C-alpha cells in the first residue's frame, strides 16, 4: 500500500499500517528516519506507562463505506504481504495498530493504548503523542491518542 505522492485535493486516502516509510516524507529506505515495519508500535510501547497498543478497529468500523472499501483493499494487500513473510493477515484483531490517513499535505495518525495503574495517564498520553510525532519527523502529522484501558492495580 502506498500513499500517492500527488493525490487529487478532494481525495483522502486511508491506509492501515504500522510502516513509517509508506507515509509522506518517509519514502526512502536507508535515510536517517527509515525504520523497520512495526517500529511505530515499538516506539509507542517504549513510552513509560504504556502497557498495550490496541488495534484501531472501533474507529474504522465507523468509516463511510467508500473509506472502508479502501481500508479493506489495503488490508488485503497488506495481508498478501504478510503472507509472504509468513505472518497472518486479514483478521481484524491483527491490526491495524495505527491508522494513518493522508491527503498529501498532512497525515493523521490514530493510536489506542492501555496505560498502567502506576502511571499518570495524561502525561503518558502526551508522551505517546510526542513519540509518534518524533517517529514521523520531518513529516507533519496530527496525532490522535485514545486511552482505552487503565490497568487495575
Amino acid at each position, binding site marked *: 500500500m502506498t500513499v500517492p505522492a500527488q493525490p487529487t485535493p478532494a481525495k483522502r486516502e486511508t491506509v492501515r499500517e504500522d510502516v513509517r516509510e509508506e507515509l509522506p516524507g518517509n519514502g526512502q529506505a536507508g535515510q536517517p528516519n527509515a525504520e523497520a515495519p512495526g517500529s511505530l508500535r515499538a516506539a509507542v510501547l517504549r513510552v513509560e506507562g504504556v502497557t*498495550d497498543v*490496541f*488495534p484501531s478497529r*472501533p474507529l474504522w468500523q465507523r468509516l463511510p463505506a467508500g473509506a472502508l472499501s479502501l481500508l479493506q483493499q489495503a488490508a488485503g494487500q497488506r495481508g498478501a504481504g504478510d503472507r509472504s513473510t509468513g505472518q497472518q493477515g486479514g*483478521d481484524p*484483531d491483527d491490526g491495524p495498530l495505527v491508522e494513518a490517513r493522508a491527503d498529501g499535505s498532512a497525515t493523521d495518525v490514530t493510536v*489506542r493504548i*492501555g*496505560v498502567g*495503574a502506576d502511571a*499518570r*495517564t*495524561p502525561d503518558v*498520553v*502526551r508522551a505517546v*503523542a*510526542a513519540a509518534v*510525532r518524533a517517529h514521523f519527523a520531518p513529516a*507533519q*502529522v*496530527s*496525532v*490522535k*491518542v*485514545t*486511552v*482505552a*484501558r*487503565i490497568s*487495575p*492495580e
Partner: protein
Amino acid sequence: MSIPHDTFECGHTLEELSQYLDTGEFPDPRHLETCPDCRNGLDSLRRLSTAGSELFSNDLAEAGSGNDDWMKNILANLKLELRPGRSIPLRSENAADTLTETEGSVLALVRSVTDLAPGAVAGRVRLEGDVTVPGEAITVNLDLAVAFGNPLLGSAAALRHDLGEALARHTELNIAAIDITITDVIDTPREEP
C-alpha cells in the same frame, strides 16, 4: 453464572467472558488480547468472583449463580459500562493533536479502585456531567454493595479519598463530588456459636 446476554461493540458478550473464566473456552481467544473492553470485563468478573468467594465462602454456589438481586444489578451495570462511551479530552501540547480517554476506561478504573475496598463491590458507576467539555464539573455516582458488619461511613470516606486520588492521577476531569450510595447490604453467613 447467569449473566445478561447483550452484545458489546466488539461482538462478544459478558456471558462469553464468564464462560471463558469458568472453562477457558472462548470463540476467538486472540481477541481477548486486543480488546480493551473485554479485558476490562474480565478484570471485573475476576474481582467479582473473588469478592463472592470472600463474602460468601459458605454460600458460594448461591452467590455465584447470579440469582441474588445485588449480583444481578452489578452484572447488569457491568454490561452497560463495558463500552467505550464518551471521549474524555486530555490537554495536548500540540493544537493539531487530539488526546482522549474513553469513558469506559475511567468507569473501569473507578470499579477497580472500589473493588479493592474490603467487603465492598461496585454496583452502578456513572459520570454525571458533560465529560467531553474540559473543566466541566463532574460528579461521580457510585452504588456500592457492602458486606454486613462493615463500618459504612469509614469505608465510604476512605473509598472517596482513594477514588479522588485515582481520578486525579488518571484523568483531567474536574471532579466536583463523589457520591457513594450503599444500595445493598449483603447479609453474609455468620459463624455458628
